[in-house]
């Protein structure tokens, strides 16, 4: 029997008429890296806020390490570490003082306090800057300090809400190294939300959330099997005509998207040379790839995940727009 550290049953959170979390249930095994995926506004942060006792559910139940998140919030808070989506450091204090504050409120014993603070600061390579005020840190350094802080009291579950949002690829990679190292050494369960698809490939299991509902939950490999076949994207000088032709010749519906036309086919490598030779409409470009989680998301929700990443303003507009369209 699997030992589940997080159990969520029929969780609902309403804000007025708006249902942010719509009756979700799932469990996370001890020591698992669990990815929580979905576009902005899907309900990921609301779910995390409930799990970490910052917000009360409208109905349903959730436990962490056997403690109820509503009735036993003190024990829950002691068991979890958090790295929030938005910064939550005291910029007027030094890195060291921020960690000291954290060690005190989480009752890290005085005998190991100094040594642990040193250990986590060295891990995120901020030991040399420990006495500088946090406001002099770069964005990446602040994030690293928050991760160090989240680990300071050896939490059983570490929640990371968009931990690498807005960071450069190098810093993102380094943060991932810490996360994997932490799991290896401490067996910490890691609960992570993101809307970067490539990041959750590191997860053991992934839940995909959309409009407050869980649409899928499985390993990355199994999820990719939902798409199954290879994906071919083709650009032609007349996409409508080409789509018609694909339907007639290969009995397949091609989708219009940002890459032109996309369709799925088994054994793509063998199919491609014939396709290029026989296809009537002029092909401008063609590409073949294995399914990614982006494709899984598209398949499950009918929308592209990537459209959420264009730019912050555009992102918000698109989101409101697609939401309105749904109603």
């Amino acid at each position, binding site marked *: 029997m699997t030992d589940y550290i997080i159990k969520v049953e029929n969780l609902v959170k309403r804000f007025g008429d708006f249902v942010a979390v719509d009756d979700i249930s799932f469990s996370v095994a001890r020591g698992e890296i669990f990815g929580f995926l979905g576009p902005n506004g899907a309900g990921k942060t609301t779910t995390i806020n409930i799990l*970490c*006792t*910052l*917000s*009360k559910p409208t109905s349903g139940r959730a436990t962490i390490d056997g403690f109820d998140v509503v009735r036993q919030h*003190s*024990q829950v*808070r*002691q068991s*979890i570490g*958090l790295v*929030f989506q*938005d*910064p*939550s*450091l*005291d*910029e*007027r*204090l030094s890195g060291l*003082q921020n960690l000291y*504050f*954290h060690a*005190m*409120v*989480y*009752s890290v014993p005085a005998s190991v306090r100094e040594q642990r603070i040193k250990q986590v600061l060295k891990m995120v390579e901020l030991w040399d800057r420990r006495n500088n*005020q946090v406001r002099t840190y770069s964005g990446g350094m602040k994030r690293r300090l928050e991760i160090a*802080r989240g680990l300071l009291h050896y939490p059983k579950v570490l929640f990371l809400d968009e931990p690498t949002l807005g960071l450069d690829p190098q810093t993102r990679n380094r943060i991932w190294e810490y996360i994997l190292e932490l799991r290896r050494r401490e067996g910490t369960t890691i609960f992570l939300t993101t809307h970067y698809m490539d990041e959750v490939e590191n997860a053991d299991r992934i839940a995909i959330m959309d409009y407050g509902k869980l649409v899928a939950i499985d390993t990355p490999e199994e999820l990719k099997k939902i798409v199954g076949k290879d994906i071919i994207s083709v650009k032609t000088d007349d996409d409508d005509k080409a789509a018609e032709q694909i339907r007639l010749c290969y009995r397949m519906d091609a989708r219009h998207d940002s890459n032109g036309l996309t369709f799925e086919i088994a054994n793509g490598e063998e199919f491609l040379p014939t396709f290029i030779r026989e296809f009537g409409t002029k092909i401008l470009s063609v590409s073949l790839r294995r399914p990614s989680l982006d494709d899984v998301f598209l398949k499950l929700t009918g929308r592209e995940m990537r459209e959420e990443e264009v730019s912050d303003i555009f992102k918000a507009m698109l989101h409101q727009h697609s939401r309105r369209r749904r109603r």
Partner: protein
Amino acid sequence: MNNLRGVYIIWYRDLLRFWHDKMRMIGSLIFPLLFLFVFGSGLSTRMGFLVPGVDFAQFMFPGIIGMTVLMSSFSAGISVVWDRELGFLKEVLVAPISRASVAMGKTLGAATVALLQGIAILIFAPLIGVSLSVWTVLALLPLMFLLAASMGSLGILLAARIRSMEAFTAVMQLLMFPMVFLSGAFFPLQDLPVWMSILVKINPATYGVAPIRQVMLGASADSPFGINLLGHTMSIWDNVAVLAAFGVAMTILAMWSFGNQE
């Protein structure tokens, strides 16, 4: 035990931040000193003695101390609103310490910082011609701290309820200035118009300023520094009791209010 450590660390952080911000320390003294020296000196020569041996500047001096302590502690609530805006409050709210101890720590932090500022003003006593014995100073410190803690918890209570910076600043000024002006800090409370007399007596700050003045300038029963409440002349202890009751009520409300926020 956990909660005691929580109170301590929240208080300690407030002091650290105050220490880091030396400009704030100096800036917060300029306003009361301006009042004291400009108004005090300007009006003293014209008005002469209010009571034998006490000129206007000397009369105002304890009031200025009360004002400094009140404004500093009351406005400390703004740091909670700041923390919320800048995200740090989340770190505090998910910590395994009770919300009540957070409110308590913030109140004590605000009160301590305000007390330090009050002491800084107290140092100017010789320049005003107010002589202070060691005993007077020892009696003044708890009185100043009581006023600071009461007003600090009122500020924290407001900050637990009011989310936006702008709204908090507006509400704060709306309450703070009338409380200072109608506390007897700047003028004797005898022979006021009835409406003003009523406002003065329902103002909790009045009961903080009066005992500071009574200790500093003398508290004989017929001195003009006492408050006459419903025909009863308030002694130092009467004033302390009223202020303490207000302070305890505010602290309990602040602790309760902090516990209820998401």
